[in-house]
Structure formats: C-alpha cells, structure tokens
C-alpha cells in the first residue's frame, strides 16, 4: 500500500520541465536525492499543492485531493526549503496560531521538542540561525501529528549533534507503521542510516526507485590505478583522482589484480551516477559521461577516455 502515488506529474517552467512518476511506500522512509535543480523541491511543493501541476495524478493514501482536502491537509505535513510562515513572529505566537489552524496540534510534543532542541520561545524566528529555523520547521511539522511527512533538506545547516536528534526523531515518527516519510537531502549519510527506499531524480524525471539495500547490492565500486577496456565498457560512472580511478558498475563479477571492489554507499552511488560530467581532479578536465546514456547501454567509449 502506498502513502503517496504520483503518476506523470507534469510541471513546466519553460527551461525546466518535470514529469515524475513514483510511489512512496507507506510505513517506509524514502530518500529523494538528486543534484541541485533536479526538481526535488518542485516535486515536494507540487505534492503539497503549493505549486500547480499541468497534469498528472496524486493519490494520498489512496484518496484524491479533491473532496478530501480537510483530511489530507491535516494529515500531511511538510518541511519546505524555506520557512512557510511569518518569521517575524515569535515561536510562542506561532504555537498559538498553529494550534488554531490544526485542531490536533500536539502541545506537549511541542514543549518537549523545543526543550530538546534548545530553541527559545520569545525570540523572533527571523533571528534564529539557519539551522535553528530548520529545526523549528520540523517541530511544527511533527506536532501537526501527520501520517505523511515530506522533508525538503531538513538537516541542512543543522549541527551534527542535532542532526543526529533529527534523524532519531524521524525514526521515532516511523515507529508507527502507518506513517510515511519522503526525505529529500544532500546528506546521504542520513539516508544510509535510515532510508528504506532510494529515489533518484534527474532533470525532472525519476530515474531510480528501488530498495536501498538491493540497489547498493546491485552495484560495485571498483578502485583501480588504470582504466581497462573492460572497466570502461562496464562502467556506469567514473571518477578520476590523482590516486587513480573509481568505477561504478553493475557487473559484480569484475575482479583482478590491483582492483579494490566494494559495495557502494548511497553517496558513492549518487556521485557516480548523477553527474553529466565526470570530474578529473588531477588535470582539471571534465570527461563526458551520461547516466542516462550509460545505464545499461552499450558503448565503446561512453566517457571519451
């Protein structure tokens, strides 16, 4: 059963077009990763009806938005990339406001989380640091008691100690198996830690949507000093450094002298698959490599090496 079913959700900004199809599983944490400008925030805002879509379909726990607005907007909460409220207010005023807007707003949880994150109640939110604002946005979202939580880079700018707290809070939220989380982030360590599914977005299109354990298991990261023809042929992504090359491949059988093979982390998967350019940090050159062209495609020298 899906918490969110998104089918051919299309947005057109002229230079940027999105057409996303993805199902966010209920009871799971889905990590959404992609480069800047891939459309992650646009997707989240469109799901939250803060951005109009041209066409497509979204079902929230199997229900369409029209006719179920009250239920859906009560039970879906979001941490956007910027605060979605008047930051000139103090938390104590925002608390009263949110209580009047969301009847099931949890005052006790609010007090607990404000103490946990050590946030002041009588200082205007626009005086908070960036990290403090992110934490406060998360507090408001959690206290709404949602079933579906959409997080657009919630740990961005948050110090490592509180980032750990945020991740634990998400895990605590997921102790209820009917809850759903969609977590967009560039901090892939967090996804390594808690995500069940990984969704990769590139140029407005979902290019991967699989269970985290299996996609990492399906790939191998090979470190080598020199690039052989076999490696070039089997490569999905290549990174060059002054120490040699790291090659991401789906071929789990590749081995040899001088090759170090391991299962990639989410970050390594992200770095090797999402760039149109493969960085050559030693020479300052860029070698062309396209995720779409090389993902399973045959090519003699897809990276022009």
């Amino acid at each position, binding site marked *: 059963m899906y918490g969110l079913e998104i089918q051919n*959700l299309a947005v057109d900004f002229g230079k940027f077009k999105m057409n996303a199809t993805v199902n966010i599983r209920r009871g799971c944490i889905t990590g959404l990763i992609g480069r800047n400008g891939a459309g992650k925030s646009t997707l989240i*805002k469109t799901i*939250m*009806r*803060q*951005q*109009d*879509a041209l*066409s*497509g*379909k*979204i079902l*929230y*726990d199997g*229900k*369409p*938005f*029209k006719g*179920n*607005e*009250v*239920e*859906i*907007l*009560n*039970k879906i909460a*979001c941490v*956007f990339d*910027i605060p*979605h*409220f*008047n930051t*000139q*207010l103090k938390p104590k*005023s925002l608390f*009263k*406001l*949110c209580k*009047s*807007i*969301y*009847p*099931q707003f949890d005052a006790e949880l609010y007090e607990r989380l404000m103490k946990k994150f050590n946030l002041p109640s009588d200082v205007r939110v626009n005086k908070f640091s960036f990290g403090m604002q992110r934490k406060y946005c998360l507090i408001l979202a959690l206290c709404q008691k949602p*079933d579906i939580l959409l997080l657009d880079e919630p740990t961005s700018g948050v110090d490592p100690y509180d980032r750990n707290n945020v991740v634990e809070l998400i895990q605590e939220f997921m102790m209820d198996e009917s809850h759903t989380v969609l977590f967009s982030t560039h901090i892939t360590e967090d996804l390594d830690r808690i995500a069940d599914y990984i969704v990769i977005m590139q140029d407005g299109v979902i290019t991967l949507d699989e269970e985290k354990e299996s996609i990492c298991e399906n790939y191998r990261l090979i470190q080598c000093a020199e690039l052989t023809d076999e490696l070039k042929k089997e490569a999905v992504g290549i990174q060059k450094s002054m120490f040699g090359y790291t090659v991401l491949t789906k071929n789990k059988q590749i081995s040899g002298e001088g090759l170090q093979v391991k299962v990639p982390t989410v970050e390594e998967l992200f770095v090797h698959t999402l760039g149109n350019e493969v960085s050559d940090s030693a020479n300052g050159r860029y070698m062309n490599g396209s995720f779409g062209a090389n993902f399973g495609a045959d090519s003699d020298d897809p990276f022009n090496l």
Partner: protein
Amino acid sequence: MKNIKSPTLWGYIRCCFTENAYNQGNRSYVLQDNCAAIFSGMFYIFLVGSFGQEAMPLLMPFLWIMVMALSIMILQIQRKPSLYNLMPMRTGKKMVYFFISLLFMTVVASVIIAAVMIVFAIILAIILAIATGQWILVAEETAASGIFPCAESYGLVIFIALIALGSVLIIAFIKRRLLRDTLMFLPPLVIFAALEIFTDLTGVSRRLLYVELGASPFCWILLTVTGVVGGICIIAGIVRFVLYLRTKDY
C-alpha cells in the same frame, strides 16, 4: 485517514492577520494599497460634492479600509508555501470565511485607522495652533466639532495631497522593509487627516470644500490615476484569487 475538523472562523481570521503582516512591505502592495485608499477617499469626496451627502462621515474611512482590506487579503494570497495556503479547509468554506474575514477586518481596521487619524489630526491641529497663535479657536472648534480646527483653503489641502502621493512612491522604494511597513499607511492618512484639519481654518465648511474639490479637475485626475492603478491591481488580485481557490484536479 480519520475525518478531521478544519479550523474555526477565528483560526482563519487569525491566520489572515499574520499572513497579512507576512506579505506587507512588498513594494507593489504599498503602491496598490495606497492607490486604493486615496481612490476610495476621493470617491467619497466626489459623492459628498455631487450629492451633498455628508450624513455618513464614517463612510469615507470605511470605504477606504474596505478597499484596502480587500486588496491586502487578495494580494497576500500567493502561490508559495504559507500557513494560509496549507490550511486544512475546503475551498468553498475558505471563500465564505474570506468574505466574513473581510468584513471583520474592515470594521476593526476602520476603528483603528479612524483613531489614528483623529490622534494625528489633533497633533497637527496643535502644531498649527502654536504656529497661528489661535489657541482659543482650536479649543472651541475642538470642543464644538469634537476634533478638528479650521483650514486655510483647499489649495493647501491639494498641496498636502500631492506631497502624500509623492511620499507613496518614495515609501514604496525604501529598501528597509520594517521602515516600509511602518510608513506604508501614512500617505493616505496624511491626506485625509489634513483635509479634515484644514477645512475650517478659513471658515469654509467641509461640505462646501468637498463640493468644490469634488468638481475640480484635481479630483478627477486623482480619481482616474488611483482608480486605474488600484483597480487594475484589485481586478488582477480577484482573478488570481479565483484561480487560486479553484481546486486543481490532479
């Protein structure tokens, strides 16, 4: 999902007030709101001048505030994440609450603005009394009318109105948002408080002044300019509001 209740009318109004403050200070709001205020004030003067109806002195600020409240409430609805946009409420109910809130805001704001105008007028009157030395006149007029002293001529009023209009433009382009927010409502206040103060300085009655002013080219120019600018913004805002309230089927 469980059947959850939507916010009450008070919750809606509360949200509108904070979202209002959130969006105030935007340059276009300064221009549009002040044009709406000046337009409604001049329209009132025109009505008085044309039909001699001065029986409803509160109509002028009421008209002004209503137009301004409408424009603020419509234009503050933007297609970006906000508590207002995320409020769990059916579209039809939101529209009904919108109009109820508009009336509520109009009444409350009318009282506040009228009070501010009165205080402002009294301060100006005191300054004038000090300048002209006519303390007794001020006291008598204030006692008799409750508020305002005498005016020199409506030429002075027009001069003040032009200064206020110019200040609208200046305020709109002030970069410091807090300062812009604070000064935003001053221009129309200046015009109409000054109008009230100066109507009687020469013994010219307010009604007579309105008749002359309402028939003057100045009035027509001001009505046209502010009506066009304010009207376009309000119509655009209404269209945007209607489109916004339409529940997209996706």
